[in-house]
């Protein structure tokens, strides 16, 4: 079901992009964690009090003095949503859309390799990249906290939060991937594949901002990722995580089935 030659090539083609994303995350994590001040409330909390609307748009609500909820509020409401999401979109483009659009898919299919194997391998490359990115963020967060504030971080809940983000990002990857498999035209493949998660994200931001729009959050799948609930270990939030993961599996299976049955004008 997996072609290791193709997998290795995919990984080799992704690591530069991964490195850039890792660098961006390193910068944000380091800066934001340094702003944490357990005694006085962080500088960011001052911002949040001064400009509550603006800060809540990007998911940064005043956090409690606990380090894990501080990280959840300032890193997992915006940065850890948007950057892995961009990674998903770029990866799908590189692994599927461009091959179909340019025609280099020809060589992948003019070989005794099943289409299911090609799609599954590319999916696996993307999942590996995504996992590496979130794993890196987890380690980065833990190390940063342990250096600056030893013993202050509830590592168990922080890891759970990262597993939650991973489920959400797999789901987003599933959307990008299925669009890449449905549409032959790269315009639609990328437009719809990137558009659905982006739109969902914007709705989520609007719902965060305004009380009238608060109900709008139920219109997107982002609502299944309840970061506050996850660190509080609420069963509803855990269920949301599992739902996202199962949703991702369904999207990926459907994408592979569609790719295997579709007409390719290559």
């Amino acid at each position: 079901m997996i072609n290791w030659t193709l997998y290795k090539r995919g990984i080799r083609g992704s690591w530069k992009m991964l490195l850039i994303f890792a660098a961006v995350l390193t910068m944000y994590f380091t800066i934001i964690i340094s702003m944490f001040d357990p005694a006085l409330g962080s500088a960011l909390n001052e911002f949040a009090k001064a400009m509550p609307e603006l800060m809540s748009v990007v998911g940064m609500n005043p956090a409690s003095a606990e380090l894990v909820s501080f990280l959840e509020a300032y890193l997992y409401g915006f940065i850890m949503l948007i950057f892995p999401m961009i990674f998903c979109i770029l990866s799908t483009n590189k692994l599927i859309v461009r091959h179909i659009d340019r025609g280099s898919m020809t060589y992948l299919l003019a070989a005794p390799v099943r289409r299911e194997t090609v799609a599954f391998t590319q999916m696996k490359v993307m999942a590996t990249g995504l996992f590496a990115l979130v794993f890196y963020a987890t380690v980065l967060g833990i190390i940063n906290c342990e250096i600056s504030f030893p013993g202050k971080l509830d590592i168990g809940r922080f890891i759970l939060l990262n597993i939650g983000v991973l489920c959400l990002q797999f789901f987003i990857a599933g959307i990008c991937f299925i669009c890449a498999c449905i549409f032959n035209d790269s315009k639609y493949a990328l437009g719809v594949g990137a558009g659905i998660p982006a739109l969902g994200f914007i709705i989520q931001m609007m719902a965060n901002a305004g009380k009238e729009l608060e109900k709008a959050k139920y219109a997107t799948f982002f609502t299944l990722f309840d970061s506050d609930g996850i660190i509080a270990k609420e069963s509803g939030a855990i269920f949301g995580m599992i739902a996202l993961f199962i949703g991702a599996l369904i999207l990926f299976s459907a994408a592979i089935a569609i790719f295997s049955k579709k007409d390719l004008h290559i």
Partner: protein
Amino acid sequence: MGVCEIQGLTRDYGKGRGVFDLSFSINQGEVFGFLGPNGAGKTTTIRHLMGFLKPQKGRCTIGGKDCWKDRAEIQKNLGYIPGEMVFFDDMTGTQFLSFMTKYRKTKSNGRTKELLERFELDPQSKLKKMSKGMKQKVGIVAAFMHDPEVLILDEPTSGLDQLMQSRFIELLLEEKARGKTILMSSHMFEEVERTCSRVAIIRQGTLAALDNVDALKAAQAKKYVITLENEEAAARFANEGLRVSDVSQNQVTVIVQNNIKELISVMDRYPVINIITPNQSLEEIFMQYYGGENQ
């Protein structure tokens, strides 16, 4: 039953484009020429054979296996040169060939090296920096290196110079002698004439003609443009009872079919300055053969 069978293949793209109820079969050890103007449906047919497209009606088989359902199985013993060479742009030629060998899970053999030498190709530069001819050579090596039983070649010599074209023809003849079954689409009469035993021409998605090359050659009407010393001589020359298609100033265009001696004897009596045979496209030749240009 032939190695490669197409039965009632139909794919309608609308507006008269596509392939309609196309049937033919290719025998073991045969080089089969597949010709037609642009947009006639050659590539569409080939995409069905490759399992990229599912037939709307009809079916294609290679070696008795269904080209859509058993495509991965068929590919084990198939070599393909696409009409347009698109590779992975960040690889060098060497990396690409070794990637394809591993990707296909074929054992590397001496054949790749032999092919590279035959086509004088040094594949060490980046694919995206290669000229069209070099890319074409990489494509040829990739199609033949695993020594497949069946070859599907979509305009395989485009971009190659004369010398490499004839090397390619030699390679095809060798493969034919080894019993390989080859489908080749082409625009070059010489290539088809030298390699193919049978030829099919497709027009507007339907089979316009299917015959062996010898019959085609025998019926081929050749054009000669003869330049005479002056217009007066040209006018007299045109009235000698030869099949004249055009007279302009001191040039006479004559169509000759199997009576070259007659032309020579007439020319002997006239002040001929020059004689040229303009290149005729395959389609032109075919259309002459099948009567009328408006068919």
